[in-house]
């Protein structure tokens, strides 16, 4: 079971056990990680599942494309390591990934 660590703006961390085959957003929502709102349920509509990926993990993720890329650019505070977690499938390779939850999703 891959583990994902979410770090809140306050520094508080939460480790979530995830199953492969679901998205990082789903794992976060099921574990009630604060700040991963995912209002559209993973449809790449709302951008409220935005995180900053700890830099060393970026290379393990496929590049954002299409709607995800377009939407990220317009989130409250986009960074080079911004991703929408509903577009990221969990794989064994991502075991240990560290993600930072933004201050606000709006």
């Amino acid at each position, binding site marked *: 079971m891959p583990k994902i660590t979410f770090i809140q703006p306050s520094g508080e961390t939460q480790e979530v056990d995830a199953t492969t085959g679901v998205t990082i957003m789903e794992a976060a*929502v*099921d574990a009630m990680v604060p700040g991963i709102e995912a*209002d*559209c349920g993973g449809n*790449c*509509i709302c951008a409220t599942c935005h995180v900053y990926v700890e830099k060393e993990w970026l290379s393990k993720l496929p590049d954002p494309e299409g709607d995800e890329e377009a939407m990220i*650019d*317009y989130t409250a505070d986009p960074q080079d390591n911004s991703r929408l977690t509903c577009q990221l499938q969990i794989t064994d390779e991502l075991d240990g990934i560290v993600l930072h939850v933004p201050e606000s999703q709006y």
Partner: protein
Amino acid sequence: MAEEQTETTVIVGAGHAGGMLATTLAQKKYPGRVLIVGDEPYLPYQRPPLSKDYLAGDIDLDKLYLKPQETYDKAGIDLTLDTRVEKIDRDSKSLKLANGADLAYDKLVLATGIQMRVLKAPGSDLNGIHYLRTISDVQKLRPELIEGHKLVIVGGGYIGLEVAAIAVKRGVDVTVLEAMDRVMERVTGPDVSAYFEKRHRDAGVDLRTGAKVAGFEDNGSGHVSAVTTESGEKFEATTVLVSIGIMPETALAEAAGLDCDDGIVVDEFTRTSDPDIFAIGDCTRHKNLFYSDAKRLEAVSNAVDQARATASVLCGEDKAYDAVPWFWSNQYDIRMQMVGLSDGHDDSVMRGLPDDDSFAIFYLKNGVVISVDAVNDPKSFMAGKKLVAARATPDKNQLSDTSVDLKTLT
């Protein structure tokens, strides 16, 4: 002395708003007990996929649930499903459930959603006439969407059109009968309606506007065989979907004497006329601080944002509902995202072109951007969210000029 008992909050309706409220309370470490009573046999779930991926068979049932059972168990949220609440007794602060049980509350939250508007016409009780609100409805409708079947959809709102798109892709012969002179009249402007009408016709849907249903014909054994219109036309049907709008589910609230006005009336803190009773989601006529007048909306954004407001009040933070509502619809490969409410606009600006299958309409009132409908244009939607929230008054020429980065206008 024993510690004082913590308060009990009961949520009626295990839908999107009810489920969201319960888990938001848990996230906020609300000290009271939280119980949800819902009349459907399912965990709280999202309805948008019911006319999209779930109807198409592209996602499984468990993807609809907002959270798995385990999450509620861990959070100590008590779910009573498949059980209708029959009555609220405000004097004794208790609920009467359909299974005969009484349930006491300190705080009550009504998240009862909607009732489908039923089409009353000769033959409207024939078999083969469907409505679409619940998982169970999809499970009855989906097996009918097979090659060779004739589906007549009454109502060209976004739900009817989403179903049309899925059905026609499956080889069903699809007719859409819309009573108004354009589709999605209630949610969007004429340019967007025209675009969708064209796309549906191109895909092979027989789409009729201004078509008012007169009645349904019987195949001789109690099953629908055709839909007739007031103008005397007849459309053969093996299956009919009626999707002509909804009414807020206010029965419990009205019987309990709470203020209702086409929706349970609530303030920006989601409080009803009884200080211990709240209401959220589709069932409300609500105050949103962003707007001057009360609104009633059928949208996930409204359901979850109102749930957040209630959670804040129950946790003593009192954060009012002031978020701009947004919405979406998927038909074929078209992804439409909408933000704000366009009613009352006096001007509009198009950015991009429908012929390029990517464009947006910005609706303005006195120069202020009040709403955006973005078709395959997520940038305009995201920028639109900011423009609407900021009550921005951008230059119209710049809005329509696709070489101008919208970020420079927000």
